[in-house]
């Protein structure tokens, strides 16, 4: 009896409870997130190294890849939900959220978390699409939660681009279904992952090429791959910070998960080169596109958002490079990025509430204003830009090593990766140092940030340790994911 259904059910119940018991909404949400963290960890770690497992009468499918995404979502969701408590309290204090609206914030947060858990657990690719589309809808409302002009604009673009992109993805899934129903016969199971993966070789190659291209663009839009990423900085920048955390740390990975499933499928049908090369190219483009926007940026959270574009590109590129090392590093990097980006957004959010703005030009002297978030921002930036001895360096090094050892296209992509991360390092550090140092402005807002040390230091120490030594459980986890992502040459 798998615990996986609980992951979707718990947030759904929590959402209902939040709606019903307005006064305890924050506590309910935090409790639910803690429960899903524990359950998610159990589900995830029992999936690594074990054979894939079905749950809920075959509706759910849990293998190591799902496990990794579940783990990431559980972790990020817990941090986001816990951080939401002080954040929302401060926002209410600053009259950004009406007290009567507070419960709806938690309702939508929990609904989004439920949808995000559903994505990696769905066996049926059509339902996976439904889950991803649902995340768009719930998070779009969250992005617009502040009802400011900018938030509405961001939400609108997010919704429109997300819907169009997912439309293409749906079209691709239709084609896959068509190909599958031909190969497997008319069956309700024709979109079930286990069936599809097993019979990938029998699918029509020409169809699968088109299908993969469409799905890549579709889910790639949602995953923030350039040039479909344009909604991402808007949404991540304008959303309330806990939502930014969810979007950047969890949701992007969910969308990328969709791409990866189809990559495996396409590779099963067409051999690895077609989908790998597309991933490689799109990844490299994403890295390259992120660079100028990081160099010249005016908003802290947009800065972090463009960094997410870069890192989604890096993961795509890593999967494109392939090989045991590249895939291990890809999984490792997904995990690292989520952890580091979550910390960065939390730090940015805490600082933003103190300054009352996220404009880089107006934020300075953060070390005086709020030492721990400032430390988190600086060290987190150093970590996420791939500087040793932090974990993202280890994963990026693994990716680059795999790229250098691989085919010419992979080598070129690895060079793009190295050059891109150096430029992003310089750009991000420039902005972040200007925020952290200098003399603080006199007028600051009142905002509390309890347990700052836990929010900031724990992830950073974890990143530091993982940069040098990987606990055997995680090593096994990433190896298992790499084994799932392995495509026959």
């Amino acid at each position: 009896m798998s615990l996986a259904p609980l992951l979707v059910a718990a947030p759904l119940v929590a959402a209902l409870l939040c709606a019903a018991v307005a006064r305890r909404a924050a506590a309910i949400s935090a409790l639910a997130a803690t429960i899903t963290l524990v359950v998610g960890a159990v589900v995830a770690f029992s999936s690594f190294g074990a054979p894939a497992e079905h749950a809920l009468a075959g509706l759910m499918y849990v293998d190591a890849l799902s496990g990794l995404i579940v783990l990431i979502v559980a972790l990020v969701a817990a941090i986001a939900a816990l951080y939401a408590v002080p954040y929302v309290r401060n926002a209410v204090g600053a009259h950004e959220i009406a007290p009567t609206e507070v419960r709806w914030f938690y309702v939508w947060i929990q609904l989004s978390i439920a949808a995000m858990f559903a994505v990696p657990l769905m066996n049926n690719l059509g339902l996976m699409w439904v889950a991803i589309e649902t995340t768009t809808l719930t998070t779009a409302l969250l992005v617009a939660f502040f009802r400011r002009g900018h938030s509405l604009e961001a939400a609108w673009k997010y919704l429109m681009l997300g819907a169009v992109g997912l439309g293409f993805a749906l079209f691709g899934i239709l084609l896959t279904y068509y190909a599958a129903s031909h190969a497997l016969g008319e069956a309700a199971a024709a979109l079930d992952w286990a069936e599809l993966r097993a019979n990938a070789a029998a699918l029509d190659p020409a169809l699968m090429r088109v299908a993969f291209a469409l799905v890549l663009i579709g889910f790639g839009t949602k995953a923030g791959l350039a040039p479909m990423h344009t909604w991402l900085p808007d949404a991540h920048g304008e959303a309330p910070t806990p939502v930014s955390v969810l979007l950047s740390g969890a949701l992007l990975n969910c969308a990328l998960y969709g791409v990866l499933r189809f990559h495996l499928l396409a590779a099963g049908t067409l051999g690895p080169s077609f989908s790998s090369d597309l991933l490689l190219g799109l990844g490299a483009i994403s890295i390259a596109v992120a660079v100028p926007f990081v160099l010249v940026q005016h908003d802290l959270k947009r800065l972090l958002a463009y960094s997410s574009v870069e890192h989604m590109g890096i993961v795509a590129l890593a999967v494109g490079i392939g090989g045991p090392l590249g895939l291990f590093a890809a999984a490792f990097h997904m995990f690292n990025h989520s952890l580091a980006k979550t910390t960065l957004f939390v730090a940015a959010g805490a600082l933003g509430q103190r300054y009352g703005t996220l404009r880089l030009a107006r934020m300075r002297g953060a070390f005086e204003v709020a030492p721990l978030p400032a430390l988190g921002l600086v060290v987190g930036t150093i970590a996420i830009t791939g500087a040793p001895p932090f974990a993202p360096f280890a994963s990026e090094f693994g990716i680059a090593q795999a790229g250098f050892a691989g085919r010419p296209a992979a080598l070129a992509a690895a060079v793009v990766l190295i050059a891109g991360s150096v430029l992003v390092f310089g750009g991000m550090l420039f902005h972040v140092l200007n925020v952290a140092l200098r003399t603080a402005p006199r007028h600051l807002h009142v905002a509390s940030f309890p347990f700052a040390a836990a929010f900031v230091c724990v992830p950073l120490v974890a990143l530091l340790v993982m940069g040098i030594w990987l606990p055997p459980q995680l090593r096994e986890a990433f190896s298992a994911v790499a084994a799932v992502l392995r495509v026959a040459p």
Partner: protein
Amino acid sequence: MIGAAAVVDGLALALLAVALFSVTIRGLVSGVWLLVVQSLLLALVAATIGVSSGAAHMWAAAILTLAVRAFAVPAVLFRVLTAVALKRETRPLLSSRDALIVGVGLALTAYLAAGRLELTGAFPARQALPVSLALIFIGLLLMATRRKAISQLIGLITIENGIFLAGLIATLGLPLFVEIGIFFDLLVAVGVTAVLTLRINEQFDTMNTDELRRLRG
């Protein structure tokens, strides 16, 4: 069978015509009415296929189409239109004539592109797949050239219709529970979009998406 295919072909061409017509008009209310027409045509396609192939769930698809696409979604849109008291699309990026020319061009492109895809074993309606692609393209055109949020929503639904048509033709519909999920999503999407549209209107006192160009770089 042949007769059914011809019917579907006819319906598909009608869909294309409706879509092209919607490119040329500016009235928002008529735009929504054209969506209703599209949905009815789609329901007819589903029903025709249901009759000819005897697939029971095609009937379900037809009924769902009627309920969601032809009734619920337009209802929401009309509510929004009433709420914001808006009648016409002003100053689209392309004039009606130019938009029509581009639309026809996109339709031709769709025919060219679809011709390359060999769908053996699909429902043998030759026009349906190109038309579905054309609907997607035309929907994109609508979204890209209109300034009003509601027009963009109309474009989005046109795209959805195109995909749905392709689904009907190519695979005789997705598994039912998937399809229900997708319908549900469509409904929620329209609902959420409507809410956002109303809020944008409230915030900016307009539904012009020109106002939504402040986030740059």
